[in-house]
């Protein structure tokens, strides 16, 4: 037994020493153990051995070090990686495999912990959402009116998630009400059934095409009957499964069932008087987002508009801006920073560009009286003037409607970058505290082509970088005016 212990202790010595003298040392131990029997001699033997180890092991390693450091210095001169090792033998294959396995396990554990510890979302999700983040309405800096406009307008289905910073700004909350978070497991079949029924009800009530809504609902019920839903107990997985089933039949990628671990904020159906007053005040402070109205050289009118605000608040500002450009020979609309807004404002401004009423197509709204421009506008001289619209990759929503419709009507020349590509706003329908549904409510038929700008954006006629768009448009306008 004691010999085995000493054999283990011998492993403390460097390998070259063990190889040459290991057996001898063990033999010496055996000889001494053989000769020194009894408690005290044996105790003295062990004391000797331990003292000997304490002195000679460090000494053995110290003798090795200078040789190794010398080798390392030599390697460093050749810019090669340098490792300092205590042993002069290379690790065996077993040690290498063990090392690899250990590193992999440590790495996996690290990433698992990173993604699942507490309420953390995966890193990829945060990065994705970071791209969409923008200042909240509480910032109260010029330009916030655009955010207010966005708040007052619609919510895109994919964005209507409460754990998403953007939708927190979009969805007004109902005070500090915070029901507790649910565990992610579905408790029983009854809850599944309740959710399924709610999804079907919402679909039938709100989906734009009743025929597709009916077919999709039937498919959901068929899946349920087949027991396709039974295996899923995780709430999020169930929401994803329903989304998949919805899209299979409807082929509409904007339909979705969403689950949130945190409770959804409660939507207020109508903005309150206070909201409206705040909105009005923000717009007024921001000159209704009419950032610049001026006449450039060669009598080119320039209007920088950062939103299409509500005409009930901004009609006068818009009219005044257009009137001040009335004597221009050409117009440049700068929508490079335009965040969208109301399609009634799109119609209102477009009215100045025609001498007869034109239909302003908006995929999100059924045609109303306001969908037609009130052209001709009395006293307006812009109906036949060349018009250039500056676009950028962040020109979005109602601004895209302006670009798309006027391009399709061949009334304007788009200069700049392809627009953002956001056409279908949809309603978010709350099912309960944790489940909701995004249902696109496309209501109008596109008179120009099958596809609108959803996902693709509006292509410019003259493709240049957004920063160079104004200069390019000015040149185009100038040469056009000179040709006349």
């Amino acid at each position: 037994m004691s010999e085995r212990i000493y054999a283990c202790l011998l492993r403390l010595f460097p390998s070259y020493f063990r190889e040459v003298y290991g057996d001898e040392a063990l033999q010496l131990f055996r000889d001494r153990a053989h000769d020194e029997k009894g408690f005290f001699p044996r105790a003295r033997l062990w004391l000797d051995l331990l003292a000997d180890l304490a002195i000679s092991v460090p000494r053995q390693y110290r003798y090795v070090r200078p040789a190794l450091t010398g080798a390392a210095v030599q390697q460093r001169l050749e810019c090669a990686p340098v490792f300092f090792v205590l042993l002069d033998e290379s690790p065996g294959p077993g040690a290498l495999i063990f090392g690899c396995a250990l590193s992999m396990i440590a790495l996996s554990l690290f990433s698992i912990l990173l993604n699942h510890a507490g309420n953390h979302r995966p890193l990829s999700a945060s990065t994705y959402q970071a791209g969409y983040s923008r200042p909240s309405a509480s910032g109260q800096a010029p330009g916030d009116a655009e955010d207010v406009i966005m708040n007052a307008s619609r919510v895109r289905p994919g964005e209507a998630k409460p754990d998403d910073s953007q939708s927190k700004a979009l969805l007004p909350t109902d005070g500090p009400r915070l029901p507790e978070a649910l565990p992610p497991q579905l408790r029983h079949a009854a809850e599944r059934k309740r959710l399924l029924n709610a999804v079907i009800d919402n679909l039938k009530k709100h989906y734009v095409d009743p025929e597709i809504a009916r077919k999709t609902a039937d498919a959901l019920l068929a899946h349920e009957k087949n027991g396709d839903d039974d295996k899923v107990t995780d709430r999020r997985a169930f929401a994803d499964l329903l989304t998949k089933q919805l899209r299979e039949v409807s082929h509409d990628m904007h339909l979705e069932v969403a689950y949130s671990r945190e409770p959804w904020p409660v939507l207020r159906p109508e903005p309150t008087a206070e909201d409206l007053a705040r909105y009005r005040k923000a717009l007024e402070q921001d000159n209704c987002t009419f950032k610049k109205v001026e006449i450039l050289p060669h009598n080119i009118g320039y209007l920088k508009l950062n939103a299409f605000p509500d005409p009930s608040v901004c009609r006068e500002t818009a009219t005044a801006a257009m009137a001040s450009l009335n004597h221009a020979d050409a117009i440049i609309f700068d929508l490079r920073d335009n965040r969208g807004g109301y399609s009634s404002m799109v119609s209102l401004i477009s009215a100045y560009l025609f001498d007869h009423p034109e239909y302003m197509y908006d995929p999100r709204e059924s045609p109303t009286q306001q969908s037609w421009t009130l052209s001709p506008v009395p006293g307006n001289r812009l109906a036949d003037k060349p018009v250039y619209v500056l676009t950028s990759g962040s020109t979005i929503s109602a601004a895209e409607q302006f670009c798309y419709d006027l391009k399709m009507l061949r009334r304007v020349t788009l200069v700049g970058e392809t627009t953002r590509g956001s056409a279908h706003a949809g309603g978010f329908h709350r099912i309960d505290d944790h489940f909701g549904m995004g249902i696109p409510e496309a209501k109008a038929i596109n008179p120009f082509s099958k596809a609108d700008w959803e996902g693709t954006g509006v292509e410019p006629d003259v493709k240049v970088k957004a920063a160079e768009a104004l200069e390019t448009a000015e040149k185009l306008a100038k040469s056009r005016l000179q040709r006349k």
Partner: protein
Amino acid sequence: MPKRKLDPLPSAAFQILLALADEDLHGYGIMRQVAEQTESRMRLGPGTLYSSIQTLLEAGLIVELDRREDAKLGQERRRYYRLSSAGRKLARSEAERLADLLRVARAKKILRGEYV
């Protein structure tokens, strides 16, 4: 293997050289001889013993002999070591150095004369 310094000669190495002065010995034999000649004040452990042996071998102060059995200790074959002429010379000069030291110590009345 790097050279280990034997200058000054460590006392363990000197004791080993002295132990091998009379006869060839294996490791355990050296240990016992050293214990005997120091009246058990120095009991060389295996680590110290064999690292000293290693150093002395490298310096050519001792030589390693073929393995053979020690009749008193059973049938195991053991490595024996012998003092080389260089080793003997070094041991002598070390002893002389110590003798000189002793003379000085005696002259300084640190050590009384009767011992050496």
